[in-house]
């Protein structure tokens, strides 16, 4: 069953077209990695999935619910999908526990105790139980991103979107974040991950999507992608990022 479905999605900034006829679908439990050169529209595409970016043509369905339709309750839809950002975007004026409980209390109407218990459990899971009472600014980048993942998981999402979750991190912190993501993948979480971490793609992804100039150029299993990339653009991209 398709959990996230893109149908001929096109998007323009003024007269400039950033996405052209993007179609793909992600089944329940699948992990799909989206890669491609910068400016290829990867981040824009993933942000369209929970309506953080509007799109002008086509349709996106999350668990059967149309994202673009007028009557859609967007806050409710978004609360069912977790999102992790490149720059973490923890709320700096709130403590770690407040970051973890805000959505649970305000959107899911959980009691403070219930939200707190859930938050602490997730904090323990990402290995940051001792940091509960600190503020985001007191944590390293890797720690902040792990809290951001926990914040998304606290909402019990049906799918997770990752928008370059490790690109803003110092190299030595990439591993700790990827470990959490690999764990999630093994548990059967539906994941759409924009990343250049090809090691992650090889390890846990089911499919790899390659984008270039706003189009989905390759959409295939990881085996096909890494062993027989079909297009010259994908080959060029892979040779560039895999030589390092």
């Amino acid at each position, binding site marked *: 069953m398709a959990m996230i479905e893109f149908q001929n999605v096109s998007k323009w900034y003024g007269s400039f077209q950033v996405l052209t006829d993007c179609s793909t679908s992600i089944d329940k439990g699948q992990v799909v990695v989206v890669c491609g050169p910068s400016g290829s529209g990867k981040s824009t595409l993933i942000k369209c999935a929970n309506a953080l970016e509007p799109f002008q043509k086509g349709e996106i369905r999350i668990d059967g619910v149309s994202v673009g339709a007028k009557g859609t309750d967007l*806050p409710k839809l*978004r*609360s069912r999908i977790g*999102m992790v950002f490149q720059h973490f975007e923890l*709320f700096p*004026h709130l403590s770690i526990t407040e970051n973890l409980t805000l959505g649970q209390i*305000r*959107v899911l109407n959980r009691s403070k105790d219930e939200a707190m218990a859930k938050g602490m459990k997730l904090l323990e899971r990402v290995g940051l139980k001792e940091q509960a009472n600190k503020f985001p600014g*007191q944590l390293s980048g890797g720690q902040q991103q792990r809290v951001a993942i926990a914040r998304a998981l606290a909402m019990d999402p049906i799918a997770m979107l990752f928008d370059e979750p490790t690109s803003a991190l110092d190299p030595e912190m990439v591993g700790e974040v990827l470990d959490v993501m690999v764990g999630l993948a093994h548990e059967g979480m539906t994941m759409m991950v924009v990343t250049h971490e090809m090691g992650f793609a090889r390890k846990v992804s089911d499919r790899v999507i390659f984008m270039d100039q706003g189009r989905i150029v390759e959409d295939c299993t990881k085996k096909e992608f890494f062993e027989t990339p079909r297009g010259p653009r994908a080959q060029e991209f892979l040779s560039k990022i895999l030589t390092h």
Partner: protein
Amino acid sequence: MGDLDFGVIARVWPYLLSGLQYTVQLTVVAAIGGVIFGTLLAMARLSSIKPLAMVAAGYVNLMRSIPLLLVIFWFYFLVPVLWQTITGAERPPSIGAERSAYITFVLFEAAYFCEIMRAGIQSIPRGQVGAAYAVGLDYWQSMRLVVLPQAFRNMLPVLLTQTIILFQDVSLVSLLNVTDFVGAAGKIAQRDSRLVEMYLFVAIIYFLLCWLLSWLVKRLQQRIAIVR
């Protein structure tokens, strides 16, 4: 210097105090009302609904291009007459100078607080709004729980400056014959021919209160600072 008599202050102290009380009251009401109304105006100016943004911008620009003195006169003398013309009432409604002053200051200050809060809201990275939405918060929740608390912290020093200006501008209401602190002191100064004593005293109290306010805001700022 020999003929200065500061004893006059003690003799009329209750009267001065009632004036000071009015000044402080008007300042507090105008600051709180102005920040609330100003923040709503700022949100309207930044709204994607074009007519709303235009109306808010028009209001702010109008208020900021008219001297406060004129606005005070306008509300006191002309608005009641205008009201009478519109409603066809027999007599213009009597709002009273004190109430008129409250309304005027809230409406006037809101224009300035709007611009401060607008800058504050714009100082918050777009990603914060995205993150708030991604968690499932709606527009009002995102504003109230994520954007405004940060914007307010960032703008606290400028909000303080504006409040100090407001505190001093309140003295203009003495033109409506409302007895604020400066007005009360002025009346005594004229009556008893004690101009130097009274105006010196007023200046010192103003200085002390502004200094106290700055100190309080500094404390508040340290307490709610965002840890970076």
